[in-house]
């Protein structure tokens, strides 16, 4: 049966199980948008800026594990997607980005709103296509979704010339892909597995460091079994948060630049580091010479190119994390590491993360802890990028995968609001909180309108300190407090919300925190709370840039007092 390119695209999206897409129309996309009403199965959410579409698709993908879809028109629409595509690429998020393109006869002629978007996105996509023939569009869609979600997931872009959308071609949806150059490693090499198990069984002070690969692969249960069998402490990366329950007795939180002191000390002291689904980002390793200096390293990852890229490892195992952990677990002896765990507990006491300073000031750590209490740790938490992101990682306790959604590799301010929108659309049953900074939020604040138009009930908590806080913190600690270009005169966020017809509250004291959170959650619809926090609060501990992880700086001592002794959850 003959169909137009636009119809083929819609059919393909439905075949791939797409229920929702985030987009913004434009001239060359009109044939598509004109066709879309024929397919009411696809919910289209109109964003206010294409960056929001890309981040929303990414947030949707991370919250659901399904492929997120975004669409933008040619030229400026396409270039506006770039930050969001890069973000999805660096955090291995399955996204299909659809861009309009000028008609084929004028491609290459610098036509109105023509830009070479596949060229621009070459280094930030897993793969990309220009659909030059309507007849091959179905095959391209099939391949794009397959590539986005399999193996190491990532963004795939399809550029769609206008006349391809209008032209008719014979349509049938292909049932298989033809990608001879695409290999997905599955099981680890048996010898490597055997050797790794031997290393684990011989280790005296083993530590697991788990990343987002565990979440992507759905290997939480396998990781838990391995850790429990071998009594191996588990540390996560930022994006690995939630892959192992943080209330588990073997959980030692996050390592790295703003990781816990005890996690960083454990990595320095361990004799066997078992790295699972992580890629040794510099924010995790600190100065590379000081990273696990006494350890043999087992590296389990799906992507062979990650092996030996930043850190040389003793025992690489390339394969699906879940399959590898399943196989490994069978060969690992039940062990106890009593002295080692005692040592870690001692460090936990010396460098506590759960203590929150007592006093009258409204500090972000306190708010995040209250958010945790009020949501029972059950909410999906999405953050922007900056201090608030680190405080969230430190003080909210995540016990499930996919509940912490944050921009890790790219560190893209402005991610929070649109990504939380995508997360809420993907998991409408969940409470979704966007914890954002006043700086980060202002980068994509226009999406408040999208929340209203599509009634997406995201709750927004702004840690408003009137600064670009993380940059200010670096200026404070490493540039003699010269606060250049970091003081931030913000708007009255409650009034901004009101202008968008979103109710809001301003909170200035600790007593108001919990009631405000409760009010926000009781409200049926989006809600914004502007928390006026201590302006010059810093994130501690901190490993100074370029330093080894062991050289972490802690909160200046005089400020610390143990606030209502928390039982570590």
């Amino acid at each position, binding site marked *: 049966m003959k169909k137009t390119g636009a119809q083929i695209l819609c059919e393909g999206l439905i075949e791939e199980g797409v229920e929702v897409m985030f987009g913004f129309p434009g001239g060359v996309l009109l044939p598509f948008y004109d066709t879309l009403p024929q397919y009411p199965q696809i919910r289209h959410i109109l964003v206010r800026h294409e960056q929001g579409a890309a981040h929303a698709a990414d947030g949707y993908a991370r919250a659901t594990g399904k492929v997120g879809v975004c669409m933008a028109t040619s030229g400026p629409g396409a270039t506006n997607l770039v930050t969001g595509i890069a973000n999805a690429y660096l955090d291995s998020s399955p996204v299909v980005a659809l861009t309009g393109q000028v008609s084929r006869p004028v491609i290459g002629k610098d036509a109105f709103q023509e830009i070479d978007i*596949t*060229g621009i996105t*070459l*280094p930030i996509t*897993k*793969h990309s296509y*220009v659909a030059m023939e309507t007849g091959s569009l179905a095959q391209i869609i099939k391949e794009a979704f397959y*590539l986005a979600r399999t193996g190491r997931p990532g963004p795939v872009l399809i550029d769609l010339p206008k006349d391809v959308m209008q032209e008719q071609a014979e349509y049938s949806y292909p049932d298989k892909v033809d*990608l*001879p*150059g*695409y*290999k997905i490693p599955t099981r680890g*090499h048996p010898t490597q597995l055997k050797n790794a198990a031997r290393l684990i069984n011989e280790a005296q002070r083993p530590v697991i460091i788990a990343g987002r690969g565990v979440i992507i692969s759905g290997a939480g249960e396998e990781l838990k079994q391995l850790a429990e069998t071998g009594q191996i402490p588990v540390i996560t990366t930022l994006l690995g948060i939630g892959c192992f329950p943080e209330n588990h007795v073997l959980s030692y939180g996050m390592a790295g630049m703003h990781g816990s002191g005890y996690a960083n000390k454990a990595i320095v002291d361990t004799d066997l580091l078992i790295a699972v689904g992580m890629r040794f980002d510099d924010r995790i390793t600190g100065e590379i010479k000081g990273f696990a200096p006494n350890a043999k390293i087992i590296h389990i990852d799906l*992507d*062979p*190119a990650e*092996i*030996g*890229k930043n850190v*040389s*490892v*003793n*025992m*690489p195992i390339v394969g699906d994390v879940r399959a590898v952990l399943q196989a490994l677990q069978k060969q690992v002896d039940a062990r106890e590491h009593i002295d080692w765990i005692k040592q870690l507990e001692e460090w936990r006491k010396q460098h506590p993360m759960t203590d929150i300073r007592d006093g009258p000031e409204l500090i972000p750590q306190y708010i995040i802890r209250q958010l945790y209490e009020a949501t029972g740790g059950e909410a999906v938490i999405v953050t922007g990028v900056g201090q608030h992101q680190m405080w969230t990682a430190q003080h909210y306790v995540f016990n499930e995968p996919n509940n912490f959604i944050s921009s890790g590799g790219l560190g893209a301010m402005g991610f929070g609001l649109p990504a939380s929108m995508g997360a809420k659309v993907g998991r409408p049953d969940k409470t979704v909180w966007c914890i954002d900074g006043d700086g980060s939020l202002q980068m994509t604040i226009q999406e408040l309108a999208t929340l209203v138009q599509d009634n997406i009930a995201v709750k927004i908590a702004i840690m408003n300190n009137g600064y670009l806080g993380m940059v200010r913190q670096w200026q404070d600690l490493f540039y003699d407090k010269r606060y250049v270009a970091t003081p931030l005169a913000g708007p009255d966020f409650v009034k901004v919300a009101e202008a968008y017809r979103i109710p809001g509250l301003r909170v200035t004291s600790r007593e108001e925190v919990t009631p405000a959170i409760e009010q926000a959650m009781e409200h049926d619809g989006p809600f914004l709370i502007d928390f006026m926090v201590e302006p010059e609060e810093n994130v501690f501990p901190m490993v100074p840039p370029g330093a080894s992880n062991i050289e972490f700086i802690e909160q200046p001592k005089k400020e610390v007092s143990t606030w209502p002794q928390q039982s570590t959850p």
Partner: protein
Amino acid sequence: MAATKHTLVAIVQDKPGVLNRMASLFRRRGFNIESIAVGHSELPHLSRVTIIVNGSNAMVEQVRKQLDKLIDVVRVTDITGDNITIRELALIKVRATSATRSEIIEIADIFRANIVDVASDSLTIEITGDEDKVDSMLKLLRGFGVREIARTGRIAMVRGSLRSLPVEEKSLKSRTKNNRKEMN
């Protein structure tokens, strides 16, 4: 780790943008290519790319793995150290007068090169061989006045019987072996 010359052979799909993707990857990851040559392979729709890179084993292994990740790249093999034949072709236009012409022809003969064009004031020589051979002849010709040089990138093939072709299974095995060597 010492930098050495490596010869990579990539079998890639004949699709628009393949070379662009490869070149973009070299630039982005900071890999320097010394030579690259592209042409049809024995299989329809597949091209063969021969890449010469200078670098440590670890760096080149990283190049190889990154290339292998490209969807349109079917496989990449590092054939360095295998018994291989490497060839390039050069066209050299050299100044020649009636006094020097015969001497130049003699040099070309020694290198089993061909004279492909003769003009009143120049000779154009075609030479095929490995890099050293081409360089040696060039050195001898410099004195006469080399006016123009065009060199293809190098192409390479493993010597021996059909079984020694860099089939995927074999390259996979040698890859793991190399890995282990480096890691320890």
